[in-house]
């Protein structure tokens, strides 16, 4: 942490100098403030098929590890082709006999139930999510779990109002959906995928990421408690092979994937000879653009939230900061000050800002890309901070003097690493922001309303946050342009991707 002699002098404020501020550094330490609610984990999690928890025929299980301390949390069943087949048959049967024929008003009640039961057990789920994935408890408690419940609640109400989804047309469910979700928001992604599919009357086979299966299977407990008809939701766990079996199966009328652009393209290729519908929510390399008239202190908070939220494991993370040249020096100085007070460490501590990196593989990838940034000549800054001895952690990192050709400006890092570039004119900002194969999100910070609307129009991105960043809502469609994928999740537009018009 900063020592006292690096602080600005406490003299009278002079123009052009940053205002004096108090930096306590490590003069005082925080007392630990661990969240102690019981996550109610089982020693072993089975597959959820046709409304029941069943063991895999192969008898194979894999470990789910707590990335904060590398300890084993539970054993997760490994689904093979036989289980994927059973899951799809159950889903098809449920679609043909119960769910697909049920009046929307009745489907709605089940979804409302799931939302309520999830709210009941919110803290338990938050602790489980943090232990399984490494994200700070304040995020899982205040964002992931409440937002997941909100998605079920929002979509529940659509189930009997589908005549309003596509004006002038009647809609019908597609049938059985295959869904594969990532490890960065394990429970929330379940909700994003399941809620609209179920509201529309589809049945689902879903595969969570192998490092974060626990909350999906805890959600299966809630689905059982809600008395959802057997087979409407089936959850199969495993790694890439299981995922490929879920995506490549003959039964699903549609597959929905959230994950890397690389894997998304593999799935698109593998389904090229079929008529299956797809939605893809893929990677991003979002530009967060700061103009000289922006409220800089708020912008700095937005930059911090944009890149360090969930350790930067966010597809829409504001990982490229584009700063207007006149304020670049001030913004970077403020950013560095702010980074010095970020608390990195135990995800279960209520004061933690940046938790554990989800897996060793991801930590290796982040480390390699940061090395490439240094090698290519960008200026590295990391605040002094002590990382826990056990577990996978990476300090918050920014690079200054980045150019568009650097790998750290082009590749998705998916970690707490920010690349800072500068611009002189709005046109240059747009040019740099759009100069990427991705197009998921962007941020704009300025006091000028007309500029916000112009920038929002010209940025090729599915979500634009103006004077804010990383905000989400079930009513707000989310999804990308270009190689960030297609289809939307959330809002009325998200429902369009789970129906056919009749």
């Amino acid at each position, binding site marked *: 942490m900063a020592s006292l002699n690096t602080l600005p002098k406490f003299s009278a404020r002079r123009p052009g100098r940053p205002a004096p501020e108090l930096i306590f550094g490590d003069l005082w330490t925080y007392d630990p403030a661990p969240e102690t609610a019981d996550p109610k984990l089982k020693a072993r999690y089975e597959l959820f098929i046709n409304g029941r928890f069943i063991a895999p025929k192969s008898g194979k299980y894999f470990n789910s590890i707590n990335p904060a301390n590398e300890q084993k949390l539970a054993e997760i069943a490994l689904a093979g082709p036989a289980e994927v087949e059973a899951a799809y048959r159950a889903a098809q049967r449920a679609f043909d006999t119960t769910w697909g024929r049920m009046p929307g008003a009745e489907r709605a009640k089940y979804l409302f139930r799931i939302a309520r039961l999830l709210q009941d057990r919110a803290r338990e789920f938050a602790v489980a999510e943090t232990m399984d994935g490494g994200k700070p408890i304040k995020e899982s408690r205040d964002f992931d779990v409440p937002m997941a419940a909100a998605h079920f609640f929002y979509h529940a109400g659509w189930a009997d109002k589908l005549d309003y989804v596509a004006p002038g047309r009647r809609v019908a469910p597609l049938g059985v959906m295959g869904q594969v979700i990532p490890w960065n928001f394990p429970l929330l992604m379940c909700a994003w995928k399941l809620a609209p599919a179920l509201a529309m009357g589809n049945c689902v086979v879903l595969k969570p990421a192998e490092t974060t299966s626990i909350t999906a299977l805890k959600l299966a407990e809630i689905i059982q408690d809600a008395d959802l008809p057997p087979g409407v939701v089936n959850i199969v766990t495993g790694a890439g092979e299981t995922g490929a079996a879920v995506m490549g199966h003959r039964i699903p009328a549609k597959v929905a994937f959230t994950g890397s652009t690389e894997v998304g393209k593999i799935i698109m290729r593998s389904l090229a000879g079929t008529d299956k519908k797809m939605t893809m929510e893929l990677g991003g390399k979002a530009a967060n653009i700061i103009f000289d008239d922006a409220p800089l202190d708020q912008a700095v908070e937005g930059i911090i939230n944009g890149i360090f939220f969930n350790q930067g494991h966010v597809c829409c993370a504001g990982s490229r900061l584009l700063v207007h040249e006149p304020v670049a020096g001030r913004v970077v100085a403020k950013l560095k000050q702010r980074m010095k007070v970020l608390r990195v460490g135990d995800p279960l501590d209520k004061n933690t800002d940046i938790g554990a990196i989800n897996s060793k593989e991801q930590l290796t990838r982040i480390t390699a890309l940061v090395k490439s940034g240094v090698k290519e000549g960008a200026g590295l800054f990391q605040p002094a901070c002590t990382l826990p001895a056990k577990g996978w952690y990476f300090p918050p990192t920014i690079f200054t003097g980045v150019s568009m050709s650097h790998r750290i400006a082009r590749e998705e890092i998916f970690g707490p690493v920010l690349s800072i570039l500068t611009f002189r004119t709005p046109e240059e900002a747009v040019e740099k922001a759009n100069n990427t194969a991705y197009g998921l999100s962007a941020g704009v910070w300025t006091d000028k309303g007309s500029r916000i609307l112009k920038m929002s129009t010209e940025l090729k991105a599915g979500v634009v946050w*103006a*004077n804010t960043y990383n905000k989400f809502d079930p009513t707000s469609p989310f999804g990308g342009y270009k190689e960030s994928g297609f289809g939307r999740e959330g809002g009325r537009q998200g429902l369009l991707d789970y129906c056919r018009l009749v």
Partner: protein
Amino acid sequence: MSRLPITKTPKVYVGGAFIRSESARVFPIRDAAGHFFANIPQCTRKDLRNAVEAAAKAGPGWAKRTAYNRGQILYRLGEMLEARAVEMTSAITLGAPSPARVRAAAREVAATVDRLIYYAGWADKYEQVLGNVNPVAAPYFNFTVTEPMGVVGVIAPDAAPLLGLVSLLAPAIVSGNTVVALASETHPYAAILLGEMLATSDLPGGVVNLLTGFRREIVPTFATHTHLRAISGVAKADERKALKLGAAESVKRTHLLKAEAKTDWFASRAQSLEAIRDTLEFKTTWHPIGA
């Protein structure tokens, strides 16, 4: 002695100009009686790339036109076609003597005019139906609007070569996309004449680019060209697979109708708001509400 008529040299309409293929290749088409009618440009993948460049150049200006203006230009195109309906009818029949064939072609031209008028009317309305304000649970103003995808590739069917082509390109351009279209391989002449009508319809050059040629030569480049952000078209099974495989490389959007399914282009469902939506992106913008 009777006067020898002047025949027209067919040229394709690309970037607002009438050009021959860069390859200087042509292929002959015959009239209904089986006599030589004209040489049609046999465009290449390089012609396609040039056309995409022209379309990309025209894109931002076209997308910035007001919706009202785009609607009027589509309507104007309808006016041009109506006024030259007889000429277009004979471009489809190529001199077929059968009254039934002539009536069918006249019906196709009339349906094409009506289709243009249908989409012209949507220009300043689809946004009001597809977009909306979202009531987020926090103090933000949040709204979803549509935006054109950019350059759209259109692959026209052989059945209803004029109506099919226009039914695919009109919903793309009405929202501000620009189009590179491959005309029917078996009946390319209607597209040649359509180019001449486009040129007189106030549509800026490069918004619609029409190529003629052989599918097997050009469809593979439609698949792989990364600046084409979407493909709308009619394709056979092997072409669909190739188009989707190529689309995966740049996560391109594909909306492919089956050639074997025999789409009824005259049906009312051959025109729809959803066809416009197919080449739109949804964009959601957030802004805090506060002083």
